[in-house]
């Protein structure tokens, strides 16, 4: 399994666990928006994901503008984590 696949699974696991979603990882469309019409998350969920990313990946989402970009989809979030991990 490639690093990219592992990271996508880790991110989906984080989303499901932190937000207590009753879905399986396979049900999350990696290209679909996390908020609104996609996974249907809201701003409170965003804050919980910000905390989760800080605690589990050591990555900060400093404000909503960055969050809008990072939380666009699972794919976008993986790209953000890859770019900022270890910085």
């Amino acid at each position, binding site marked *: 399994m490639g690093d990219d696949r592992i990271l996508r699974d880790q991110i989906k696991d984080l989303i499901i666990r932190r937000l207590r979603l009753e879905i399986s990882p396979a049900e999350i469309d990696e290209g679909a928006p996390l908020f609104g019409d996609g996974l249907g998350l809201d*701003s*409170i969920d*965003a*804050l919980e994901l*910000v*905390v989760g990313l800080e605690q589990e990946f050591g990555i900060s*989402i400093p*404000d*909503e503008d960055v*969050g809008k970009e990072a939380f666009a989809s699972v794919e976008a979030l993986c790209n953000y984590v890859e770019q900022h991990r270890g910085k």
Partner: protein
Amino acid sequence: MSGQGFFFHLLPHRPPFLFLDRIIELEPGKEIVALKRVSAGEEMVGHFPSPGDGLPVSLIAEAMAQAASLAATSAREGEGPPSGAYASIKEMQILREPRSGEELWLRMKLLRQYGRLFEFHGEAKIGEELVGEGELVFHLY
């Protein structure tokens, strides 16, 4: 910044459902220390009345929430009437009921802000004794 009520106009709460008597320290948007003096007659306020003559335990969380609201809304003072609501309460534990005559010290400290969401960690103490602790997320509209 400190004061004895200069910021209470930022809260919609009024007696008997205002559970702050005095602001000891306030750093707008960041941290607040406030005081609540527990008096007789408050045991019947709230959904879960106190079995004694103290403040019902659920109202410690309410007092913490009111203090954190002040800390959040004071950062936006002058931008029109502030309003907001609590979005979540996490890992709240209340260890004992404050009794009539005791002073409840509330310290709420901002953990993080994300947009209009303010996440606070709070402690409620009587003297040096911790009687309540938890995290609250306030949504400023």
